[in-house]
């Protein structure tokens, strides 16, 4: 039982980080209708920024300041990428634009890898592998932090899209660009802001991915776990991204805990993609595709 609860907890924790990345995909997709494959590079860029700012004895900033600063910097980087590389492509086929985001990802990763260097870099997180014991079950603090961060992000995004003038403008743009323009909403700014939000969330996720284990030149691969998450959740659903991320984390943790020997040591790593295939077979549009309101 303790083993099961441990897997459950770790899965939800790790899944929270996947959900943060998946949220970035969804925010960009909803505004621009483009699947951005630049998320992995933004994730490691954010983690690297945290590492430079907060790790080591001569850290520039305390960890708690470094994280929001890194989120801001990554957000600005993402908005810059949108402005320079994606904006000129407005009106081009979404497939073309998606390919460009792959190019952006590769370029950014080359630059970030230079910054990471050949060794593993710590991100300067205060948790490491420390554990608190609740009701006899040992819980890793980093997983608690991931869940708390995801909860905060969901609440903040929810309020932003509901009450903020700009958040409402983003939703309006997602639903009907011409209507948004006709109300004086600058659709270009909405695109840039979507990228900025996705970049900031990716940075936060990157920091979490780097806790305890650190980051290296292969860390970006973890961001790909968000792909099964958004396919499970549906590309245009915030709630779906969250559920998708958590499900991927859970499946991975449960498979890692209970996998029979004949499946091999590392089946947990591919389990999210097996899940992806299964979902696609049953529900090609994901489990949370938006239902449209229509008056009959």
């Amino acid at each position, binding site marked *: 039982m303790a083993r099961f609860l441990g897997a459950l907890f770790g899965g939800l924790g790790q899944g929270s980080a996947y959900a943060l990345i998946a949220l970035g995909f969804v925010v960009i997709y909803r505004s621009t209708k483009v699947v951005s494959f630049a998320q992995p590079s933004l994730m490691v860029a954010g983690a690297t920024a945290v590492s430079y700012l907060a790790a080591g004895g001569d850290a520039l900033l305390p960890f708690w300041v470094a994280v929001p600063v890194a989120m801001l910097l990554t957000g600005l980087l993402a908005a810059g990428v949108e402005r320079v590389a994606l904006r000129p492509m407005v009106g081009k086929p979404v497939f073309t634009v998606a390919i460009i985001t792959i190019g952006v990802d590769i370029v950014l990763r080359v630059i970030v890898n230079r910054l990471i260097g050949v060794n593993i870099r710590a991100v300067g997180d205060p948790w490491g592998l420390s554990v608190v014991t609740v009701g006899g079950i040992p819980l890793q603090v980093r997983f608690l932090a991931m869940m708390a961060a995801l909860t905060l992000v969901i609440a903040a995004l929810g309020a932003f899209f509901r009450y903020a003038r700009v958040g409402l403008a983003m939703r309006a743009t997602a*639903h009907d660009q011409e209507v948004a323009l*006709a109300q004086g909403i600058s659709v270009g700014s909405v695109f840039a802001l979507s990228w900025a939000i996705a970049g900031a969330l990716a940075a936060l996720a990157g920091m979490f991915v780097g806790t305890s284990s650190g980051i290296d030149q292969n860390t970006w691969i973890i961001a790909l776990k968000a792909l099964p998450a958004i396919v499970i959740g549906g590309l245009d659903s915030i709630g779906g991204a969250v559920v998708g991320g958590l499900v991927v984390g859970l499946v991975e943790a449960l498979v890692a805990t209970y996998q029979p020997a004949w499946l091999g040591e590392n089946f947990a790593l591919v389990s999210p993609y097996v899940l992806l295939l299964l979902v696609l077979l049953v529900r090609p549009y994901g489990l949370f595709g938006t239902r449209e309101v229509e*008056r009959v």
Partner: protein
Amino acid sequence: MTGRFPYHAGRGGPRRRSQGVAVLAVSNLEVVYDDVILVLRGVSLQVPQGSIVALLGANGAGKTTLLRAISGLLDVHEGEVTKGRITLDGEEIHHLDAPRIVRLGIKQVLEGRRVLAEFTVEENLRVGAHAARGRALGDDLDRVFTLFPVLRDRRRRTAGYLSGGEQQMLAMGRALMSDPRYLLLDEPSLGLAPLLVQQIRDLIVAINEQGTTVLLVEQNATMALGIAGHGYVLETGKVVMDKPSADLLADDDVREFYLGLGGDGRRSFRDVKHYKRRKRWLS
């Protein structure tokens, strides 16, 4: 018929620019879609501040295209102004993007209402207030709810579930949230029952009396000419008539082609004559 032509006083005074006449003017405008499809072929039109101007024309004449050109929405449709100009109070505006034009006080209500179906009524209105930065949202909501009390009753409802008439009112209310000087209405009576058309018509008059200038695109010529001071008839991208509404209402061709009057079974010499006239319009 309200007999307000050509200038209805409205609230013009304080808003009117000091130099020159306050007018939205289109001159010799040519618009092309996809670089090749010539849709407007030298259109000129004037909308003096405070007036209601009607723009009539059959399907595909280019009415919507003209509104898009004014409000900067051609880009979205791969359209482009290739000749001519659009000016507001003498300043050229046809190079500006839609958000800039909205901030100058020109708002278009798109054909087919286009309410944000999954938003509540109030959220739709708040989107309309996007350009009204620095103003009190509550005041604008009150002003719109006073014009359209039904929206106040429905404010928490999902817009997609409103009736057609209510959706039209929401679309108009949304545009009015930023208190525009000019309101461009694209077929507001489309698909509405006669009683609702009456209601929309009265609302347009009320909006105009509160000081908003209206350019009204309509297929329902009776309704439009009933409240407009001046009317234009567009045929395949050209203005073929440009007269005070009263004159248009009395014109035989307009009566026949746009009001469905004057036919009464006489299909002889007159038909031939009208056919010729129509051909002239089309050429």
